[in-house]
């Protein structure tokens, strides 16, 4: 994403005055400050950069009350998965809870979005800057908003930026993020979800590809044979990024930092750790996430006591879907191919307990078939 010059970040297109709805609002109605003061320094006293965060009720919510009502339940605002996961791994020591809250505020809390940080500006976590000079964007531009944050994994997968891996087939069909990830899904529905896979109206491949099980479908037999046994990505995803150990802290100047120890492209099929009626598949693609028992060592010099409560290889839905992949070239490209399946040998000895639920025992790897 092209960086914006400092003045570009705050330049406003006078065309906004012609916006039949937002153009009727004066700047200070949302942002505060004193528009009558010709001195820019004093005029900005009390100015709120993003009036929609953390509470949009007195700005966007004045007109878009139906959306603002559920705003706090959107994962982009609540970041509830960070809280849920880190607290589960931490264990029940109340003294450490405070430390964890401090660490989360410094390192995770900035990765939120808001009405403004999707529809008016780039998100603050990528240094902000107005989109289209403050002209309101009904559909957030993919490059400047979605993949500005979801850059390391989703962007590289979707646009084919990982060496040797082609872009997602949906990208080649010119799909933007919002084709699958609708506004209703982004805006929250009032339910406090623990992670994105729980979200009721999250996208499903079958929303568009319902015909794959029909007899008329070209590959109906393969799809029916594997129905509810494999996630779509197991057959249709290419190798994706896995990240390892992240450590966070503050430098000598008090600035927050993170350090990850590297990333690797890979492809692993694991047992579904979130098996449910909604996700009945036994096998899913799993991705290693950047966590370590000592991730928060800077804040509390002990390891996460309950680290093994969650796997470090997590259910993943990579964004590099292809019709043909190395593992679906033939039946035995997958059947009997132990390398594709997450085994004990793929996991560091100290992480084996944490990953017990996702590691595929050798006897569960599908056997070779006569082709």
């Amino acid at each position, binding site marked *: 994403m092209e960086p914006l*010059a*400092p*003045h570009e970040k*705050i*330049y*406003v*297109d*006078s065309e906004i*005055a012609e916006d039949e709805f937002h153009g009727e609002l*004066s*700047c*200070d109605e949302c*942002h505060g*400050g004193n*528009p*009558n*003061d*010709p001195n*820019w320094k004093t*005029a900005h006293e009390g100015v709120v950069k993003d009036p929609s965060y953390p509470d949009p009720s007195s700005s966007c919510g004045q007109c878009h009350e139906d959306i603002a009502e559920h705003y706090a339940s959107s994962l982009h605002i609540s970041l509830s998965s960070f809280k849920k996961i880190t607290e589960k791994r931490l264990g029940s020591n109340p003294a450490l809870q405070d430390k964890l809250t401090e660490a989360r505020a410094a390192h995770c809390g900035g990765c939120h979005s808001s009405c403004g940080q999707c529809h008016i500006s780039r998100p603050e976590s990528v*240094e902000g800057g107005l989109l289209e000079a*403050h002209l309101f964007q009904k559909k957030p531009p993919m490059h400047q908003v979605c993949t500005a944050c979801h*850059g*390391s994994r989703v962007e590289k997968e979707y646009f084919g930026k990982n060496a040797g891996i082609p872009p997602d087939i949906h990208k080649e069909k010119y799909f933007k993020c919002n084709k699958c990830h609708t506004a209703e899904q982004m805006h929250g529905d009032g339910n406090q979800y623990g992670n994105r896979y729980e979200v009721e109206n999250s996208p499903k491949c079958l929303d568009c590809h319902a015909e794959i099980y029909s007899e008329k479908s070209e590959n109906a037999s393969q799809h029916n044979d594997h129905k509810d046994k494999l996630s779509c990505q197991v057959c249709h995803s290419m190798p994706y*990024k896995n*990240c390892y150990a*992240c450590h966070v*802290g*503050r*430098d000598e*100047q008090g*600035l*927050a*930092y*993170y*350090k*990850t*120890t*590297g*990333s690797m492209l890979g492809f692993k099929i694991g047992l579904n750790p979130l098996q449910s009626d909604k996700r009945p598949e036994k096998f899913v693609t799993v991705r290693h996430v*950047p966590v370590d028992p000592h991730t928060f060592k800077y804040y509390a010099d002990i390891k996460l006591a309950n680290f093994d409560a969650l796997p470090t290889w997590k259910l993943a839905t990579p964004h590099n879907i292809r019709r043909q992949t190395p593992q679906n070239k033939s039946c035995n490209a997958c059947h009997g191919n132990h390398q594709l399946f997450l085994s004990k040998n793929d996991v560091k000895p100290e992480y084996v307990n944490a990953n017990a639920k996702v590691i595929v025992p050798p006897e569960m790897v599908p056997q070779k078939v006569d082709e």
Partner: protein
Amino acid sequence: MKPLMLAASIVCALIFLLIVPQNISLSVGASENHCFTCHTNPRKLIQITREIAKAHKGKPAKSSEIAGEG
């Protein structure tokens, strides 16, 4: 005399209509929204952002210790 006065009145009225309302709107606009006049003026914004950058010179925006992918 009467037609002359009438013509003069019309001219005065036209001058009033043409000039005065503009002055009124300009003064209202100027007193109403400095945010708009400044934020729609790239030259002014460049000048101010340079001023801000100068005041913050030497202060890093983010830690140099950040390493790896986020």
